[in-house]
């Protein structure tokens, strides 16, 4: 049986581990030069650094995952630096690109462990040079050992906000401010549920306390007003506090993000149906607790199947592999299945509390000023999307996001709506007076990421 695993983050590693243990030799693909995924992304060779410094509290799991990754590579058809840009469920084929070379790959079953990306809300000035997502700010630090600036403001909400701010401060960068759009009270109310998460919650408290103790400026329950800057870069951030007073701080870079969203484009191309998960405030591909989708042969695990974090990703990866093995007639250890299921259920309860603690501030997206750039690929402003939703538009009103995309080009650029899609849906929903789930989601189209046209000479 030909099994393909896409992604070598926590979910992919544990999925492959279970497949190899059952005697299979999967094709294992990741577009990155090495495995590890987002949380345990490795520096390039020659830039080796101490895991304790790189991953902090996560040094233990990071080292364990990397060891598993390196041990598994020779026992699989390991293909790093390979992008899966299309997946055809009927033909059961993956289209891949490796260093400019195209190849098609047949599979009987595939486990998609494609991870997540930052969820962004455009605010005035977010397109100045020096603004990145929280995740990108962290990746720069983790893999390249450099920061996005000398004096950095971190803005948004979610565990990553506090983690990245901590990591920057620890690495010696000046953290000019941490601005959380979630009020302290909201987080405090979710605390009892968060305690179930045990160490994860403790880590979060630790980062916040650590930053406070070092006198880092912290503001919660804020409304961002603008990232100030020029064509040369960011100069500061302005915000309003919960009492309505405006504030400003100078900085030369800003990292921002409001939680994560699944990178589920391959699942979409595979024709897996999606549902709106109100708790996560994300569209997620449908799957059962074990990772089986309604599309035969397609399994999902990790943050690409719905945000759960690294611990969940590892368990879910193993669980999805066992589901695949079970479905294809292999014997699996029932006790192991039960153990994994119990751990997944426990984590799910913690997740609920976490989502309550850091809710997606939909109102911020909905209130976006008309002249704020919403879709940076297409240079489209929020007001232009609103205009397309109105009946007076020459095309008539756009009742859902794909129609709005057709009329305005929102989400039609290089990123295919991966960045602006969530905010665009909120704006459209607000303008139409509907719930965000009712305006739908941008449908995926191949390629999931841009692929270059080969020169004529090579093409022959």
């Amino acid at each position, binding site marked *: 049986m030909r099994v393909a695993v896409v992604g070598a983050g926590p979910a992919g590693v544990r999925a492959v581990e279970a497949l190899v243990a059952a005697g299979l030799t999967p094709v294992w693909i990741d577009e990155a030069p090495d495995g590890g995924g987002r949380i345990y992304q490795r520096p390039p060779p020659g830039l080796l650094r101490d895991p304790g410094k790189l991953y902090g509290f996560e040094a233990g799991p990071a080292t364990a995952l990397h060891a598993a990754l390196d041990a598994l590579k020779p026992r699989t058809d390991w293909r790093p630096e390979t992008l899966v*840009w*299309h997946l*055809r469920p*009927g033909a059961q*084929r993956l*289209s891949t690109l490796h260093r400019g070379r*195209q190849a*098609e790959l047949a599979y009987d079953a595939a486990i998609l462990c494609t991870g997540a990306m930052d969820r962004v809300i455009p605010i005035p000035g977010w397109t100045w040079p020096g603004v990145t997502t929280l995740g990108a700010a962290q990746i720069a630090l983790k893999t390249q050992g450099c920061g996005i600036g000398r004096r950095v403001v971190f803005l948004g909400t979610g565990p990553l906000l506090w983690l990245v701010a901590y990591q920057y401060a620890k690495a010696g960068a000046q953290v000019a401010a941490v601005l959380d759009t979630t009020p302290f009270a909201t987080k405090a109310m979710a605390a009892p549920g968060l305690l179930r998460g045990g160490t994860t919650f403790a880590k979060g408290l630790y980062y916040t306390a650590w930053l406070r103790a070092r006198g880092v400026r912290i503001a919660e329950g804020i409304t961002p007003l603008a990232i100030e800057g020029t064509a040369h870069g960011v100069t500061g951030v302005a915000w309003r506090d919960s009492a309505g007073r405006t504030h400003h701080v100078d900085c030369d870079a800003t990292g921002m993000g409001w939680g994560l969203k699944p990178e589920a484009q391959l699942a979409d191309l595979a024709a897996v149906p999606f549902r709106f998960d109100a708790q996560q405030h994300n569209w997620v591909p449908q799957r059962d607790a074990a990772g089986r989708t309604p599309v035969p042969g397609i399994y999902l695990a990790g943050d690409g199947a719905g945000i759960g974090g690294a611990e969940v990703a590892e368990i879910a990866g193993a669980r999805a592999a066992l589901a695949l093995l079970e479905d294809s007639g292999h014997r699996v250890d029932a006790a192991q299945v039960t153990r994994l299921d119990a751990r997944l259920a426990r984590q799910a309860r913690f997740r609920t509390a976490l989502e309550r603690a850091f809710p997606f501030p939909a109102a911020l997206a909905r209130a976006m000023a008309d002249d704020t750039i919403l879709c940076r690929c*297409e240079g489209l402003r929020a007001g232009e999307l609103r205009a397309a939703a109105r009946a007076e*538009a*020459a*095309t*008539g009103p756009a*009742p859902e996001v794909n*129609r709005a995309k*057709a*009329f305005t080009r929102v989400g*039609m*650029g*290089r990123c*295919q709506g991966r960045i602006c899609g969530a905010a665009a849906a909120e704006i459209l929903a607000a303008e139409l007076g509907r719930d965000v789930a009712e305006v739908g989601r941008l449908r995926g*189209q*191949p*390629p999931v990421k*841009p*692929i*270059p*046209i*080969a*020169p*004529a000479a090579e*093409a022959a």
Partner: protein
Amino acid sequence: MTTSCDVLIQGGGGAGCSAALHMAQRGLRVVLLERGLVGGQASGVNYGGVRQQGRHPAELPIARRSREIWGRLKELIGTDAEFEVTGHLKLARDEAEEAELIAYLDVAKAYDLPLRMIGRNAIHQEYAWLGPKVVAGSFAPEDGSANPRLLVPALARAARAAGADIREHAEVVEHAHDGTRFHLRTSGGDSFAAPVLLNMAGFWGGALAARFGEPVPVVPLSPNMAVTEPVRYFIEPNLGVVGGNVYLRQIRRGNVIIGGGHGESDPAVPWSRPLPEVTLQTLRRAVELVPALAGVNIIRSWSGIDGKMPDRIPVIGPSRTTPGLFHAFGFSGHGFQLGPGIGAIMAELVLDGRTDIPLDAFRIDRFLETAA
């Protein structure tokens, strides 16, 4: 309760919505029933070529008529749908293809279609970015391209403003004819009746024709499309080749839209998808025409569903079995340009009982004759 009207239109593509507009403007009570959203099928996802050059001679009078409407779209529907008269440059890559270009000059002349032949030396002088494989070209200055995503919704909005009743998410699931009137029922359970029914249901027009006893050999056609990221604007004309295995155009924003070959589809659902190997094959042909495209990124690919007839021209005209039924479907991959004109012509056919445009070549019973 049944809604009665003068004309029922099944299908809200370019053809149907233009017909609704033209008939409503002449005072008819029109109800158009569309299964999904107007312009959601072929008319909304096509390549956007507004081209007369290279068409079957029988289509040229319709194309000419349609081109006249394209020129005044803004007054008609409130937007020009990004229609730009960039010219259409059809290229030859060898002598046989060049001979075809030359042969078409006579056809163009007979239909007053302006066309200019560009020879071997001149072509690379005029278009320095063309690759060495190109040996000649023929330039149609009146042709160009438009944004297919805008045309039909704007036609529908104008039709509504003129009084047409356009219903979306209204799939027609039952048809009857009582001798004088058609009775249609939608999936939502609504009933409609009218003495005239226009079959403008694209590929699915074949099923409707069959329902009234005139089946035709229509098959789905799914051109394979891709678009690049925006790059510096340098390809002004809409480009095609003899044989049509690749075509491309650049919009002012910089994106290059590239078509060629066919994807896969299932009209029963309906869904359509591009095929990766076809996309890559088309890109190889495109980079041969325009070598500067090398390294430019493809950001999206897609397909759609049109109805293809064996002779690659549509069915247009009255039914031979049922009085009051008129067909206009099966545009065989080139009905986007024709849409606006088709609506005007169908309005004449229904209201005046005649049109100046010769339609004989498009008779629905032409396939019976060849079979016999």
